[in-house]
């Protein structure tokens, strides 16, 4: 049984501009110690999907349907008290921008100790000692001294380590990290990825949300590509980067500049992500898709196994036998075997 099973998740925001279907029929699973990357452009629903798992959606956002099972337990039926235990306890969270995640008026040690007190039975000095251990665990030098300092005395990378320490306080089985290294320098990013790598090696499952395909390629086992609230492709990381099956994934990959790249111009994806209050009919990607045909405007393709490979799924009519799609997706990755 998978650690986290999300099935047909629907999240809607009831706004003045209409009902925004921010996450639409999303399904994925995450096993113990597995590293899942979630990628996509801004507004694809990556963060909303993660917030839904943690029951952190604020009105006007609401979960309208589906199922979220954590370790076999249905979270959508759980009591608020139980959810409070899980959130920050069995499921740790790291958000982007550590400076806003930490409270400027409490010492760093106190903020970690607070999480320890809430999620374990340690109190007082025992909680503080545990906090210092956690700061040590995330690679903060001289943790006993640093524990008595305030967030403004920490650099961005060190502050993010503190946030990771807080997330580890309840000894989680799953860590959800939303753009944990965005805004940090590449050197500091490398340090944090090393830390996450080390934690994941200890059987911690990680759901890493990132717009940086380099980070995902390096860190993750499997990748989920989201577009306009839906999963459009799901595959083991090697398959995704070497044999992308969905035109959107191929487009994203070709837009990334690389060192050692001798292209004069980068490929671009025409257009912008659709307004989710009134998404285009049929496949949501068809207005921007270079391979779109008439059939694509009529039918919204499900996430289907590609060439019988259940681990690699793409939501494109080209992979449905009964679809009225005649063309050929003729993209390929240079250096990848055919």
């Amino acid at each position, binding site marked *: 049984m998978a650690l986290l099973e999300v099935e047909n998740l629907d999240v809607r925001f009831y706004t003045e501009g209409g009902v925004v279907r921010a996450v639409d029929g999303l399904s994925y699973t995450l096993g113990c110690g597995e590293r899942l990357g979630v990628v996509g452009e801004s507004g694809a629903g990556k963060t909303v999907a993660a917030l839904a798992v943690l029951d952190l959606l604020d009105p006007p956002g609401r979960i309208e349907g589906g199922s979220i099972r954590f370790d076999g337990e249905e979270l959508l039926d759980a009591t608020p008290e139980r959810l409070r235990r899980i959130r920050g306890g069995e499921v740790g969270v790291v958000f982007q921008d550590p400076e806003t995640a930490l409270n400027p008026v409490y010492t760093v040690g106190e903020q970690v100790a607070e999480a320890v007190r809430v999620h374990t039975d340690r109190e007082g000095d025992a909680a503080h000692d545990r906090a210092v251990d956690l700061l040590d665990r995330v690679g903060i030098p001289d943790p006993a001294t640093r524990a008595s300092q305030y967030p403004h005395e920490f650099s961005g990378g060190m502050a993010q380590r503190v946030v990771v320490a807080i997330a580890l306080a309840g000894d989680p089985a799953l860590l959800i990290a939303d753009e944990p290294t965005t805004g940090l320098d590449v*050197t*500091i990013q*490398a340090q944090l990825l090393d830390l996450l790598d080390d934690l994941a090696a200890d059987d911690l499952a990680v759901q890493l949300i990132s717009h940086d395909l380099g980070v995902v390629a390096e860190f993750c086992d499997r990748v989920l590509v989201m577009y306009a609230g839906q999963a459009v492709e799901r595959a083991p990381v090697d398959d995704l980067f070497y044999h992308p099956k969905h035109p959107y994934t191929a487009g994203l990959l070709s837009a990334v500049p690389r*060192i050692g790249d001798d292209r004069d*111009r980068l490929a*671009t994806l025409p257009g*912008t992500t659709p307004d989710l209050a009134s998404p285009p009919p049929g496949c949501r990607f068809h207005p921007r898709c270079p391979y779109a045909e008439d059939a694509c405007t009529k039918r919204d393709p499900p996430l289907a196994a590609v060439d019988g490979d259940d681990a690699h799924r793409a939501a494109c009519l080209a992979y449905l036998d009964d679809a009225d799609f005649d063309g050929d997706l003729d993209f390929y990755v240079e250096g990848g075997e055919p």
Partner: protein
Amino acid sequence: MTAPLLRAEGLVKHYPTEESFLARLLGRRRWVRAVDGVDLEIRAGETLALVGESGCGKSTLGRALVHLEEPTAGTVRHRGDDLAALSAAELRERRRDLQYVFQNPTASLDPRLTVGDAVGEALAVHGVATGADRDRRVAELLETVGLRPSHAGRYPRELSGGQCQRVGIARALAVDPEFVVWDEPVSALDVSVQASILNLLSDLKAEFGLTSLVVAHDLSVVQQIADRVAVMYLGELVEVGTVEAVFSPPYHPYTWSLLSAVPEPDPRWERDRVVLDGAVPSATDPPSGCKFHTRCPVVQDDCGEWDDHPDPAAVDDAGEHAIACPYYNRLADETGTEGA
């Protein structure tokens, strides 16, 4: 060789940590050495990238080059004239040639001005065009940067991040500059949008022969658009050269560390990664000797003891590639990266 368009010599910019009279009186005032002795040439028609970690002084150097900052010491010469020596009126005239596009496209636009007014303001301030002429020129500029003339009536909040960035670019181009500083032009954008802005920057260079300085922390972006690269660490340049030269051995140990930290979008990528310890030291109290010696992966015994930072050593015959490290060849020996 033709004279450079801009030349910085011994450029220094220090900021006080406290401005108050009391702090001054008690001698508590310390100095942030943001730019600490930089010599740099920018040649007509080239795109020079300035890279380094946050807090290394990239943006300050960029601003000092177009005289948005008064240098503490040293000079910036534009076509041979010291910008600091110009009168206010002369400097204003020069600003038409020297433009700056700020980081964070959404924050750098006035939310109460329409796109047309924001771009038109630049035309009015420099007396380039008025009335119907102005409107026509605004429409032209918007098309140049890939927007529609109808965007002129919109407010910044109605635009996406990429569109705001295009407006910022149009504003800078309004006065037909010869030199533009782009401060982190794509760092806040999605990859798909980033690609189209990078393509736009290449087009502007090809079409108008625009000279630019791109301040960036993303090396893969730099590789895409720059001709030459200057790598900066704690207020000093540590390596300067063409993109090909800087991004291949021999390296300054800092450049090598930066390059090896870039995550490649390739799960099969294998490399020796060097992970630098800690963060950039404080610029109020930088390390002695080579400023990088506290984090250097191949530090030698005497690196902390230099009296002066040595001049960058030219490592190729043409003097085009300079590395400010006397031990750069040791890096090759110790790490297995091929040396010169």
